[in-house]
């Protein structure tokens, strides 16, 4: 099994912070996003308060990977979670995508080479999301 991140939504943590503030503040989401774009310290502080129970805040993004895996490995992952999307590119080559909530919940529920690789990859995109830390899984 080999996993390579090939694309992801830009400013993932800014979007998470925007989502968190949208639900609890009277400001417009577009305004919040624009305000937070150049405030990485504020974004870090806000996403540090995130609770995974409110999973929808982790859904406004998409990560896309190239996955080298056998049919059996893909079938296992597809049966484990219905929120990962697979497209076969070649015999053992797949395009795989999902959002952070899917990665976090799957990695917390099951430890496999794939979930380890997904969590490590997502950590590069959203370094301040503590649910991706080894001790939180």
């Amino acid at each position, binding site marked *: 099994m080999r996993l390579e991140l090939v694309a992801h*939504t830009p400013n993932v943590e800014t979007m998470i912070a925007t989502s968190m503030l949208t639900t609890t503040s009277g400001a417009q989401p577009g305004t919040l996003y624009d305000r937070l774009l150049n405030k990485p310290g504020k974004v870090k502080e806000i996403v540090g308060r995130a609770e995974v129970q409110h999973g929808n805040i982790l859904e406004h993004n998409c990560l896309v990977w190239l996955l080298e895996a056998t049919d059996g490995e893909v079938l296992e992952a597809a049966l484990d979670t219905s929120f990962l999307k697979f497209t076969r590119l070649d015999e053992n080559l797949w395009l795989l995508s999902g959002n952070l909530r899917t990665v976090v919940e799957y990695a917390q529920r099951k430890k496999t080479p794939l979930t380890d690789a997904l969590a490590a990859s997502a950590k590069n995109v959203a370094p301040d999301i503590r649910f991706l830390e080894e001790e939180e899984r």
Partner: protein
Amino acid sequence: MLKEKFPTLGWRRLLPHLSYTFAVEKVSRACSHQLVRHRVASFSQQSQRYITVKRLKERVVTPPTVDDMDAFRGLVMEASDAYQTLVDAGVPKEDARFVLPNATETSLLMTMTGSALFHFYGLRCCNRAQWEIRGLADAMLAQCRDAEPELFDNAGPYCYMLGYCPEGRFTCGGMEEAVERYTPGGRG
């Protein structure tokens, strides 16, 4: 971006892996109720449990078909007064909001895959869709066409995408006009 990395992969196979996030602002709660029926999507909406609704009369969406503005405004004012009375009396916002009308403005973040978005446009750009969500769908489609014309020039109501109207006996009978309206370079 994904298309550039996988130029030989057709748009249709890429659609499930594409993601679009919109800041939907100042729509009515009636509109957001329709939005959340699109289940293959993610929503983060302003919460009436946490956000106090202030100046309700300035923050309602008024349907263009409402002729009797006095009656409409009067009911909004009554709801506003009742809501404020309840909040002032210590009733939690999550309970006081029960008197708020569907016209109350709301804003949300909404994320859909490319596949879900095509289905959304198929249904909500249709002449039979309700005016507010149809206006929203048209505005979203215009932004998508600006961003990715090669893909989204193919999106619109189902009659435009399929070449026939799937609404059966409920058809609006205006397919020709709708197809022309959504054809790039058409009447817009």
